[in-house]
């Protein structure tokens, strides 16, 4: 390949998005090709109809390849779905030096030890993220080198998914003669694109509101302390509306987009939405905006509460608040609902121009492109990185083992 090209793909429940880009100066990346297709055959982030899902991948990739005028042979892939969970691991090491000081060798060894106790063979480990060090009774150390103590401990957060589900996606791409370079948990990818180093340091919860899934990742002092995914998304909001007012799904979706609100909007609550006569309802009728907002608020409040409860008390330390990505991030008054549920401020997370350029697209709002943007940035960083023992080394060796462990 003459140019250093990177290609990334997200098979979302609503949209399949492919991006092609090239690394430019300063670790940034420029998008040179985009493809977006409606997804079919995917529910709650999981592929249920391989043929239909493959059609979306084909359309999105072809668009991207055509606009970039290149052809790609491998992609970086994002995954989500309720099968993605975390488990903690821990390594322990007695400090060996006679003066009791922690050495660089100790740190290297404990990082290895902390990654040993992996989840079972039916799980594919996507990320093994180091937590804080603990030296005897002192917790929360980011770099213990040179400190004195007897026993050093280090936790690892494994983010892993069900191997079969992940293989489904990888095999789908193989069917199109595409290799999967690496697989990234979608919320982690989104975090790469939208969070600043300051936010990560202060503590922040990124919540990705997708069509079929809600994914989250929480940073405290630059360390990922919690992550997860569950099969509740914008589709549930739509389905609730469809059932509440006996509407076809596409009409419910339209009403959600045009009239939706995350909380009951007092300024609109007296209004009614007129519905024309249709296949389902023989005569024209109207539904109450207040009832619509009631249905939506109940679902969204529950979804955000689930995130809050799953993360647990750590969330209180997220000084930079909540950042929303995904198509759901633009829901009117989501910030007010988030303030009630999380007790903190929230923002919409759009991919940052200091990381990625030429992303704008008329079809999709930027926060809905956070995951693919993050994949792109990671992918470019992987190319940039020439130290084989760095993060790339881990990814490559993970790939070489076919995610065997």
């Amino acid at each position, binding site marked *: 390949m003459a140019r250093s090209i990177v290609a990334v793909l997200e098979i979302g429940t609503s949209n399949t998005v492919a991006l092609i880009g090239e690394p430019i100066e300063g670790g940034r990346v420029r998008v040179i090709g985009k493809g977006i297709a409606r997804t079919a055959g995917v*529910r709650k982030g999981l592929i249920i109809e391989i043929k239909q899902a493959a059609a979306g991948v084909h359309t999105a990739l072809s668009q991207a390849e055509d606009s970039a005028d290149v052809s790609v042979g491998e992609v970086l892939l994002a995954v989500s779905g309720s099968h993605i969970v975390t488990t903690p691991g821990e390594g322990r090491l007695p400090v060996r030096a006679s003066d009791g000081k922690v050495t660089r060798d100790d740190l290297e060894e404990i990082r290895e030890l902390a990654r040993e106790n992996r989840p079972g063979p039916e799980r594919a480990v996507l990320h093994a993220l180091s937590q804080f060090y603990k030296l005897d009774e002192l917790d929360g150390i980011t770099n213990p080198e040179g400190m004195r103590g007897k026993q050093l401990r280090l936790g690892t957060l494994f983010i892993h998914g069900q191997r079969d589900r992940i293989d489904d996606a990888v095999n789908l791409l193989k069917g199109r003669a595409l290799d999967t370079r690496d697989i990234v948990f979608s919320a982690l990818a989104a975090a790469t694109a939208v969070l600043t180093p300051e936010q990560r340091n202060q503590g922040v919860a990124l919540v990705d509101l997708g069509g079929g899934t809600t994914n989250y990742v929480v940073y405290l002092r630059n360390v990922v302390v919690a992550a997860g995914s569950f099969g509740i998304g914008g589709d549930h909001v*739509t389905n*609730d509306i469809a059932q509440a007012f006996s509407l076809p799904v596409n009409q419910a979706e339209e009403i959600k987009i045009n009239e939706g609100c995350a909380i009951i909007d007092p300024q609109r609550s007296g209004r009614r939405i007129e519905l024309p006569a249709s296949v389902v309802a023989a005569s024209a009728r109207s539904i109450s905006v207040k009832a619509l907002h009631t249905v939506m608020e109940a679902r969204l409040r529950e979804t955000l509460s689930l995130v809050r409860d799953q993360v647990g008390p750590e969330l209180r330390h997220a000084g930079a608040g909540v950042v929303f990505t995904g198509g759901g991030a633009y829901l009117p008054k989501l910030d007010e609902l988030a303030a009630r549920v999380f007790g903190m401020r929230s923002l919409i997370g759009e991919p940052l121009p200091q990381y990625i350029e030429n992303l704008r697209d008329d079809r999709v709002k930027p926060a809905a492109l956070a995951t693919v943007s993050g994949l792109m940035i990671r992918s470019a960083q992987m190319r940039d990185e020439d130290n084989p023992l760095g993060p790339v080394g881990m990814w490559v060796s993970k790939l070489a083992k076919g995610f065997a462990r």
Partner: protein
Amino acid sequence: MSSDTTGLMLVGIGGGGCRMAAAARLAHGEGLEAIGFDTDEAAIHGVSGVRCHLIGATRLNKQGAGGVHSNGRLAAQDDLANILAQLKDARVVVLVTCLGGGTGGGATPVILKALRAEGKVTLCFATLPFSFEGSDRRQIAERDRPFLEQGADTLVLAPLDDLYAGLEQTPLAEASRQADAMLASGIGLLWRLLLTPGYIGFDPARLQNMLVSAGTARFGVGSARGEGRAEAVVAALGCTPLLRRGEALAGARALALGILAGADLRLAEIGAIMERIQTVCRKDVHIEMGVVLDPCFDGQVELVALAFEQWVPSERRAGVAAGGEYGGDLLGKDGKNDGKLQVGSGKFRGVEKTVIKGEDLDIPTYQRLHIRLER
């Protein structure tokens, strides 16, 4: 009486499940239609009173699943047509199995899934191994449990630790017999409640109506006799370890309650029982009760309770089912509604339900929270 008329059938799966089914039949008698499926021929010969069928014989040489989940699963898949043929007349299938081994944990989810596809409603009783049996069996059980939660309409978990509570000092063989008998006689009583025409009836159709897709429930039996038996029987029920010593009653959203007594039961006693029950339950609990009078219970009162952790009122369910019609993709072939109880319908038909803490989150939130909508 056959399943043709009742539509109700008890099925034991795996060694423990077959034993339990046999014990339930022993406790209840002829009217209980029960069969069993196991992979171990020798174990089948040891079970009397219940027709047991061997599954996965060619694959496993009739020697059992050896504690391996995939063996149990494959055995059920091999013989699925035969299994379904045996259950074709049932509308409500009550399964009983023991988790922690290969056949129960592996075969039960396959059978549950197939039964659901056939439109049958399932209530699954599963025991969890003792904590002293070692973490391996516990882990196997914990791993298999979500498959049952997904597959069964309602899952009733009975940890053996709970069943044996209070029997710690009893010799193992005797304690084991008593614990088996406790669950089995409970199931037997449930059968009696369902099949004996009562003054206040509780038939299989009413049970079917209470089984919430992917719900979980707790099960317990209380017994009392003599003076003040109405008050005592509720107290006894509240002490049952299987109901978490009353915790399950206090938290239940719905309660199926059966009173079985002799002909000497007085109306005031029924009133006293219901009054007591209401004081230990949530205010908004939905109770379905039945009363069966049977001479063999003369002088005593038995109280059988299924405490459901969730509940969707039937008028809401009608709405949910209708959602399958309208909420389903109008273009989609998956929009058809065959009248079965298909919760989590519409867009999510055909995918794994999103169940968190026993709650089926595919059901619209406003319905689960009983929020009234301005029309």
